[in-house]
C-alpha cells in the first residue's frame, strides 16, 4: 500500500466507457419479472426511458464533459452545491450498494448452482461460500486497478450480458418465424399502455431505477483518454445497447413463456430452461447459466468499483480520515475496497441466514430506492443549477435547446426521481402499520446517508494527503 499520489493511466476509450455503463445497467435477471407485463412492458420501458434513461444519459454527458474530473457524481454535484452536497450524493451511491450487494451475489450463486446442481441453492453454506468468493474475487480484480478491471468488464459484459441477451432475442425471432404459438395476445398499440393505479404505482420507482448506473462511466474520468469526446458517445452507445437488449429480450420471453410460469418471477434460469426446452435446445441451459453467472459478476463489479473509486477521491481530498485514502501502486482505493468488502460480507451473512424475513427485505430494498433517488435528485438539480452558476464553463457536449432544453431534461429527471422517492415510501398493502414502515425506511436511509456530514464535522487539515507528503494543503 502507498500513500503517495498515483498517476492515473489513461486506458479507457469509447468502447470501454460504454461497456462500464452496460455492465452496470444491463441485467438479464430483470427480464422475466418484466415479461410478466406482456406487451405493456413496452409502455413501462418507455416511461423509464422518458423520465430517467434519456435525462440521466444527457445530464451525465454534459456534466462529464464539463467537469471531467475523478469522482463522477461527487465532482458534478460538488460544483453545484459544494463539498457537502457532492459527498452526500456519492456516499448515497456507495451506501445503497451495501444493501444491494447481497441481492446480486445471491443471484450469481443461485445461477451457478443451477449450472451445477439446482439443489445446491438450498444449501445456505454453498450460497454464502460462493457469494464470498465472488465478492472478494471481484474486490481482488478491483485491487489490480483500472486496466485489469476494464479488461474483465469488457469481456465479461459481452459474454455475460450481451451474448445471452442476443441469444434470447434470436430465439424469440426464431419462435415467431417458425410459426409457434405466441402466449400473449396479438399486438395492438393499446396493449402497450401500462395500467397505472395505486396497485402498480410502487412499480414506478422500480422502472425508473431499472436504468440506474448510466452515470457509472463518470467515476472513471481520470483514466479516460479523451473524456470530452468519448463520454457523450459512450452514453449514447450504451443507452442504445441497453434499450435494444432489454426491450427485445423481455418481449422474447413474454411471447414464449406463459405469464403463469413467470408468475413467481421464479428466476431467470427457470424461465430460460422453459424457453430452451420449448426450442429443443435444453443442452444450452448449463452453458447459458455459466454466462449469466459471469454477467452477474460483471454487474456487481461495475457497482463495486465505480463508487469506491469516487470515495477514494473524496478521501484523497481530505474529507475522510486517512485510513480511507490508502491507494496501491495500481491506483486502486484499497482501504475503501476492503471496508466495503467487510461490511458487505456481514450484510450478506444476515441475508443468507435470515431469508424468510420478507418484511425486512422489503424495507431494505426500499432503502436502496430512497438512497439512489437522493443521488439522482442531486445530479439533476446540479445540471440545472450549473447552467446558471457556471454558464461559461466549456461543455463540449451541451444539452440542446438552451435553458429550455436543460429544464426539460432536468425537470423530467427530477419528476421521475422525486416521484420514485415518494412511492418508494409506500408499503405493500399488507403492512398493517404504515408509520412503522415509513419510519423504518426513512431512519435506515438517514443512517446510510448521514456519514458524510459526520466526516465533514470532524474534518481537519491533517486528513489531506498532500500534507502527509510534506506539501501545503
Amino acid at each position, binding site marked *: 500500500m502507498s500513500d503517495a499520489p498515483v498517476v492515473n493511466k489513461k486506458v479507457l476509450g469509447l468502447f470501454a466507457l460504454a461497456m462500464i455503463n452496460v455492465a452496470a445497467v444491463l441485467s438479464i435477471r430483470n427480464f422475466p419479472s418484466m415479461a410478466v407485463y406482456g406487451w405493456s412492458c413496452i409502455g413501462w420501458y418507455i416511461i423509464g426511458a422518458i423520465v430517467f434513461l434519456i435525462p440521466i444519459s444527457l445530464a451525465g454527458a454534459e456534466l462529464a464533459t464539463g467537469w471531467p474530473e475523478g469522482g463522477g457524481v461527487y465532482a458534478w454535484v460538488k460544483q453545484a452545491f459544494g463539498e457537502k452536497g457532492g459527498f452526500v450524493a456519492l456516499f448515497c451511491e456507495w451506501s445503497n450498494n451495501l444493501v444491494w450487494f447481497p441481492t*446480486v451475489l445471491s443471484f450469481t450463486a443461485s445461477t451457478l448452482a443451477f449450472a451445477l446442481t439446482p439443489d445446491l441453492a438450498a444449501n445456505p453454506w454453498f450460497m454464502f461460500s460462493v457469494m464470498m468468493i465472488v465478492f472478494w474475487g471481484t474486490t481482488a480484480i478491483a485491487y489490480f486497478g483500472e486496466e485489469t478491471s476494464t479488461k474483465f468488464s469488457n469481456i465479461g459484459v459481452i459474454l455475460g450480458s450481451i451474448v445471452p441477451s442476443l441469444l434470447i432475442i434470436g430465439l424469440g425471432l426464431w419462435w415467431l418465424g417458425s410459426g409457434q404459438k405466441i402466449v400473449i395476445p396479438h399486438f395492438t398499440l393499446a396493449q402497450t399502455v401500462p395500467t397505472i393505479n395505486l396497485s402498480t404505482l410502487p*412499480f414506478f420507482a*422500480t422502472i425508473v*431505477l431499472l436504468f440506474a448506473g448510466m452515470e457509472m462511466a463518470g467515476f472513471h474520468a481520470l483514466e479516460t483518454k479523451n473524456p470530452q469526446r468519448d463520454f457523450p458517445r459512450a452514453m449514447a452507445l450504451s443507452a442504445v445497447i441497453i434499450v435494444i437488449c432489454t426491450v427485445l429480450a423481455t418481449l422474447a420471453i413474454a411471447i414464449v413463456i406463459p405469464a403463469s410460469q413467470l408468475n413467481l418471477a421464479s428466476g431467470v434460469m427457470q424461465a430460460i430452461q422453459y424457453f430452451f426446452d420449448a426450442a429443443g435446445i435444453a443442452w444450452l441451459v448449463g452453458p447459458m447459466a455459466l454466462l449469466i453467472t459471469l454477467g452477474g459478476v460483471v454487474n456487481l463489479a461495475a457497482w463495486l468499483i465505480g463508487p469506491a473509486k469516487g470515495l477514494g477521491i473524496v478521501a484523497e481530498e481530505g474529507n475522510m480520515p486517512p485510513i480511507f485514502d490508502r491507494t496501491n501502486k495500481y491506483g486502486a482505493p484499497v482501504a475503501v475496497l476492503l471496508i466495503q468488502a*467487510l461490511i458487505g460480507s456481514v450484510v450478506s451473512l444476515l441475508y443468507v441466514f435470515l431469508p424468510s424475513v420478507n*418484511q425486512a427485505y422489503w424495507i431494505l430494498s426500499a432503502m436502496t430506492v430512497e438512497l439512489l433517488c437522493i443521488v439522482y435528485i442531486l445530479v439533476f438539480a446540479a445540471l440545472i443549477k450549473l447552467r446558471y452558476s457556471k454558464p461559461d464553463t466549456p461543455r463540449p457536449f451541451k444539452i440542446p435547446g438552451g435553458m429550455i432544453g436543460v429544464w426539460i431534461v432536468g425537470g423530467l429527471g427530477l419528476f421521475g426521481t422525486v416521484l420514485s422517492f415518494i412511492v418508494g415510501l409506500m408499503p*405493500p398493502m399488507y403492512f398493517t402499520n404504515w408509520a412503522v414502515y415509513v419510519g423504518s425506511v426513512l431512519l435506515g436511509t438517514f*443512517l446510510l446517508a448521514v456519514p458524510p456530514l459526520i466526516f465533514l464535522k470532524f474534518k481537519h487539515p491533517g486528513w489531506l494527503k498532500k500534507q502527509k507528503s510534506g506539501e501545503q494543503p
Partner: protein
Amino acid sequence: MTLSKNGEICLVLIVAVMFILPCLMLGLIYESEPYHVIPGEPVKAAADAAGISVVDVKGTLWNMAGATGGKTYTLTDPEGDIAYVAIQAFNSAESRDAAVRLYNAHAPGKGKHVGNMIVAGQYLIYATPANSPIFAKLVPALQQAAKTTT
C-alpha cells in the same frame, strides 16, 4: 474539531456499525417464519373468509428444488379488483428459504419486486400486482392460518 488516530478509528467503526445496524435491527424486529405444515387450502379459506371470489384455479409446480406443488388462484373482490395469488409448498425449511432467496435476488434492477410474497408454514404465497388490495385482505387470514399446525 480534531481527532486522534484512535478517534479516527472509532469514527470509522461507528460508520461501519451505522451500515450494519439497520440490517441487524430489521432481522431482529421481524421474526423468521418457522417451518411447519399448514393443513387445507389456506388461500381458498382466506378468500372465502374475506368475501373474495375465486375466478379460476390452476395447479402449478414451480421449477425449484424442494417444491412439491401448489395452485394459482385468480381472485376478484366486489370492487372489481383482480389479483393473481400463487401458493407453493416446499418439503423443507431449507428449500423454502432457498426459494425466498431466489425471489429476493430477482428484484428488477435496484428496485422492488413486481409482486408481494409472504411465507406461511410450508408455503410461499406470491401475489401480483405488488400493492393488490385483495392480497391486503387475504394476509390477516393467511397469517392466522400460519399459526395453525397439524
